[in-house]
C-alpha cells in the first residue's frame, strides 16, 4: 500500500483524510459491509465516483482496515477505511496519467510534458471532497464533528488552466512554484447544508488557486459547480 501511495505522490495527487472528532477504537461493526456502505455514500457528480468503489473488484480485508486500489485508464486511486473511522483516500491527478484536458478557447499552447491543473477539475474535486466528508460523517459518526484534512501535492511548476472548451481562458500563465503541498483542515459540523458545503468547496478552490497567484470570482466557481453532470444542490 505504501508503495502504491508513494507512486501516486511522485506525481500530482489529491489526498483526503477524514477523522471522527471523538476517538473510538471501532466505528465499523462489520468489515464486510464497508464496501457496500461506502458505495452508498460515494459522491457521483461527474460520472466517476469519489472515492471510486469498484463493485467489480474485491477489497482487501485486514485486521483493522479495508482497502481497495484502482488502476484503470487515467484513474489511479486508493482508499482505506480503518475500523477506527479514519478514512484515507489518495488519487493521482488524471492529467498526469494521460487524461486530455479540454482547454479553454484562449488558453496558451501546452508544451509537451507541461504539468496542468484544471480550474474546473479543482472546484469539482473540492466539491466532491466536501460533500463526501459530510456524508461520511453522517454515516460513520452521526451527530459528531469530523475533521477533514486535504493535501494536494506535486504542484511545483504546474500550470493552472481553464479546462472547458466552452470558456475563454486565463489572461496570463499561472504557475505554482511551491515545493510544499497545499493543505487544508476542515471541521465538518453536523447539519451542514449542501449550500454551505458547496461554498466551502469554492473557498478551498480559491485557497489552492492562490498558490498559482490566481483568484476566481465566487459566482464563476458556482457556475462550474452547476456544470457538473448530476450536481443538484438542495
Amino acid at each position: 500500500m505504501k508503495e502504491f501511495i508513494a507512486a501516486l505522490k511522485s506525481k500530482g495527487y489529491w489526498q483526503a483524510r477524514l477523522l471522527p472528532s471523538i476517538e473510538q477504537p471501532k466505528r465499523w461493526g462489520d468489515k464486510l459491509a464497508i464496501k457496500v456502505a461506502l458505495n452508498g455514500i460515494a459522491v457521483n457528480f461527474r460520472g466517476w465516483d469519489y472515492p471510486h468503489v469498484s463493485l467489480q473488484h474485491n477489497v482487501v480485508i485486514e485486521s483493522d482496515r479495508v482497502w481497495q486500489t484502482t488502476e484503470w485508464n487515467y484513474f489511479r486511486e486508493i482508499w482505506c477505511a480503518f475500523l477506527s473511522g479514519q478514512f484515507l483516500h489518495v488519487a493521482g491527478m488524471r492529467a498526469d496519467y494521460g487524461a486530455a484536458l479540454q482547454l479553454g478557447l484562449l488558453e496558451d499552447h501546452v508544451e509537451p510534458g507541461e504539468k496542468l491543473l484544471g480550474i474546473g477539475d479543482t472546484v469539482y474535486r473540492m466539491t466532491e471532497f466536501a460533500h463526501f466528508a459530510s456524508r461520511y460523517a453522517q454515516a460513520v459518526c452521526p451527530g459528531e464533528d469530523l475533521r477533514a484534512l486535504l493535501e494536494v501535492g506535486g504542484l511545483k511548476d504546474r500550470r493552472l488552466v481553464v479546462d472547458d472548451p466552452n470558456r475563454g481562458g486565463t489572461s496570463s500563465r499561472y504557475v505554482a512554484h511551491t515545493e510544499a503541498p497545499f493543505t487544508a483542515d476542515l471541521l465538518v459540523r453536523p447539519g451542514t447544508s449542501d449550500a454551505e458545503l458547496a461554498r466551502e468547496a469554492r473557498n478551498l478552490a480559491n485557497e489552492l488557486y492562490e498558490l498559482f497567484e490566481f483568484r476566481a470570482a465566487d459566482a464563476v466557481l458556482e457556475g462550474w459547480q452547476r456544470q457538473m453532470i448530476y450536481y443538484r444542490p438542495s
Partner: protein
Amino acid sequence: MTDDDIAQLIEQGHETNGVEFKSSGSLGDAHFRAKLVRAILAFANRRDSGVVVVGVSENRDKTLNPTGVTSAHAKSWDFDRLSGIVSGFADPSVELSLEVRRYKGRTFRVIVVSEFAEVPVLCKKDHGNVLRQGGCYVRSLRKPESREVAFQEDMRAVIGLATDKAVARWVGLARHVGLVGALPAQPRPALSRYDEEVEGLP
C-alpha cells in the same frame, strides 16, 4: 453534460451505479419504454441520481457496443413525449432532462435524472413484468442494475436519503426562524492515534 463526458462514460466499458446503458430503441415501443422508466425511477431514488445513455448495446462477452440511436428510432425521441411517459408511472414526478450527444460520429440520447426532492419516487402503474404498481425501484448497491428493492442495504439507502433531506429541510427552517443556533464545536481530534494507523500501513 458534454460529448467528452459521454465518451468517458462509454470508455469505462461497463455500467456503474450512476450510469445505465440501453440499446437503441423507439419511444413507441412499449416494452422499451417500460425498461427506460424502470431505470429512470431507480436513478430518481439514488443519491446523486444518474444518467441513462441510449444507443449502447452489450455484446455477448459483456463489452459495450456504442452503435448510437438509429435514425428510425431517433424520430420517436422528444422530451415532451418522454416526460409524459415517465409521468404516467412516477409518483411524485421525476425531474429529468434529455440531451443529444455525439461519440465517434454517432448520436446518443442521454437522459439526466435528478434525485427525488422530498420523498422517494414510487411506481404508480403496472406494466407487464417490468414495472409494478407501488414498486420502489433502486440502483442496487451490490451491482449496477435497476431493480425493485430486494436487499436491506438498498432499502436503507433510500430511507436514509429521504431522512437526510427531511432533516436538512427542518434544520434549514429552524435556523431561518432562529430556533437553532450553532452547535458547540467538539475539540479537534489529536492526530497521533490516527497518524499511527497510516504509518502502520504495509
